[in-house]
């Protein structure tokens, strides 16, 4: 069906004047910006970066909404502040460290050191899981202090912020897992470009999750 229509198009250039231009051997299929049309259709490095920024804008808006709710409700006379469990302090340290290892991994990739890149990635992954474990430990500490999700908003926000952030972090961990699974291979050309673009995008997401947690942590800890 599609082939039929295509020959029709190609055979009938008079639909609109100047249209369609016969495709040259190097014709591209219409993707990407004009400067990329010279050669074969090239992988667009921007795609990953753009989509992660857009995704982060959406995630940021949701957490801004939740944080605004927190600030509004903290002004309520019925607000009962809850003490910060120690586990969350540890987890903050862990996630900060994971950002450092992620940056190290990217440095190694830039220099083309696949093995070292893989090592740093796995370390980042490990720190990510340790962070989540620590968050769960924090929940346990909250529960043993008699703080549950039900009840006064400050206690609910502890669970809500950690839970919502944790779910988004799981997405980051999945992406890290994909990177790690492909990190051992030595690549060149477009495949290598693609890999470093993906690593950049995942790093961006990861650093954002780190910064987001620090903000939520400071909010829960100091704004009460």
């Amino acid at each position: 069906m599609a082939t039929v229509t295509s020959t029709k198009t190609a055979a009938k250039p008079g639909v609109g004047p100047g249209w369609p231009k016969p495709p040259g051997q190097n014709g591209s299929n219409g993707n990407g910006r004009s400067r990329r049309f010279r050669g074969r259709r090239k992988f667009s490095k921007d795609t990953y970066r753009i989509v992660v920024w857009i995704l982060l804008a959406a995630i940021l808006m949701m957490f801004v909404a939740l944080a605004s709710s927190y600030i509004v409700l903290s002004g309520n006379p019925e607000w009962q502040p809850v003490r910060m469990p120690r586990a969350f302090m540890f987890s903050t340290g862990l996630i900060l460290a994971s950002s450092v290892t992620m940056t190290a991994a990217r440095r190694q990739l830039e220099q083309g050191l696949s093995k070292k890149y893989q090592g740093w990635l796995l370390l980042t992954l490990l720190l990510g899981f340790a962070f989540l474990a620590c968050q769960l430990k924090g929940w346990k500490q909250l529960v043993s202090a008699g703080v549950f999700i039900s009840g006064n908003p400050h206690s609910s926000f502890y669970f809500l912020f950690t839970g919502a952030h944790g779910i988004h972090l799981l997405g980051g961990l999945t992406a890290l897992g994909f990177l790690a699974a492909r990190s051992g291979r030595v690549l060149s050309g477009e495949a290598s470009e693609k890999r470093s673009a993906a690593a950049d995008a995942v790093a961006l997401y990861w650093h954002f999750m780190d910064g987001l947690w620090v903000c939520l942590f400071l909010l829960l800890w100091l704004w009460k």
Partner: protein
Amino acid sequence: MAEAIHEEVHRHPAPTGFIRKYIFSIDHKVIGIQYILLALTAVVVGLVMSVLMRLNLSWPGTNWPIMGTLFPTGAPGGIMSPEFYLSLVTMHGTIMVFFVLTTAPQGGFGNYFLPIQIGADDMAFPFLNMMSFWVTFVGFVVLLLAIFAEGNLTIGSWFSKLGESFAAGSGTVGPIGGWTGYAPLSALGKIAGPGQGAGVNLWIISIAIFCVGSLLGALNFITTLLNMRTRGMTLMRMPLTCWAWFTTAVLALLSFPVLLGGGILLLLDRVAGTSFFIPGGLYVSGSLVPLHNGGSPLLWQHLFWFFGHPEVYIAILPGMGATSHILSTFARKPIFGYRAMVFAIFAIGMLGFFVWGHHMFISGMSPYSAVAFSVLTLSIGVPSAIKTFNWLGTLWGAKIRFTTPMLFAIGFVSLFVAGGITGLVLGQTSLDFFFHDTYFVTAHFHLVMGVASIFGMFAATYFWFPKMFGRMMSESLGKFHFWVTFIGVYAIFVPFHAMGMVGMPRRYAQFGEYEFLKNTHGLVLFVTVAAIITAVVQLVFYFNFFWSMFKGKKAGDNPWEATTLEWNIPSPPPHDNFAGIVPEVYRGPYEFAVPGAAKDYIMQSEPEGGPVGAH
């Protein structure tokens, strides 16, 4: 030879199996049509509900036997109960706003035509695109479940087993709190009234799912537009439709997460015992609500309207884009002030984020904030007026071709002005104090956000139908549909203004007890008759749509003599839009009646100076 190589390298083959081709398709065109069909289904449900509401308002206490059979508890003896009426109000609003006004213009036409108009062979992330449709579809199914869970005792009893907040089977068609779901009654459960158990839970879940679907869509739209424009398609050469879809996607991206956040808080209040929206010491139905304290019901209003106001622009901006596009095409003149149109559409979108407080003037907010919200709200009048005058400027002195899409586009301008002008009234705090929650508000938003957007979509449907299905829709049926609908909607909503000025409150199931509303009974009846006629005439549209799909007159590649890229390719377009060819764009989208040109339109793909093959 070159052709063969080209085929091998660049074409991606069309799927052959039925399921991959029509159901789980990743082709943006199929997904667009799926969105349109979803909206065409949802709008029937919403429309039937509005007719039922009119029946109840005009002849309260009448026995409608079929209602008694379908909803034995909600309409005992066939007489609709006030709660049943309220649930109709809620579900009508929710279905229309989310599953019609948000899906058809953006998900439907945007999906289909944005990639083609910018010269791309698909969306940036085709799989994500498929996901966004199916997620939205699941959201719709969950919303329908709310109808069955509350309306059907058997299905209701299944839900009741899930826990107290899922108590169901109240006989209504869903929650009774309106599409805005104001807290604290929406946060409480069964105690807040019939339909407030499982009905509200499913309602929240449905909207949360819808938010996710829309976010995936927005992600795709923005990336596609930024990254996949073809050679020569600069931002300022894009058709205004693309600008509208882009702005809408930005609005969706930034506003739906806020609703999602609010929805999560609301659901937690209901199922996890939190108190985000429930204050301490709250009495409902004469009893104290236990175990909750520290929440703020007003917080929900802020979160909801921070989303809710951009949402009305999400509904109408694509209509504005389509109208600009169609007016220029059939006026055979360039759009008046292209740049101003682009800036105006973006200004409307961005200002929309700073005016949510005008929905809350009577919430007891500080008069200073009210003034700020009021001034910002009125300032939206500036870009709106720019658009309106530019539309009129486009029509000025034109030899207009009065085709059906053109009539609907002109109808859009008319409705946008008629509905928008009352926005200036409602945007003023002092006047809003009187008009708040009266039929005046109902008239305002139905004209400007409801009917105007729908007219934009009708215009788009009649305009692009030939491209989508390769056949023309019937012009005579279309014109008949236009005139009855156009007169019909004014006959429905102009009297609403009068009722509002008398002080008739919205969302009331009956007005018999109110002495001051006695005189409005004639108007109420008149509106009902107009509404029934207008609703029935939509059958003509449905008939025209499906009949023309198979029996309509064959359309050529460019039946309207339009200029943008979608009119360069066959109708319907091949699987990868441009059959592997890179379209190249040399000029702006509205080059009609160019002095010295051979024809009265020059397509975007036509090279500067010189005939075909000169290069």
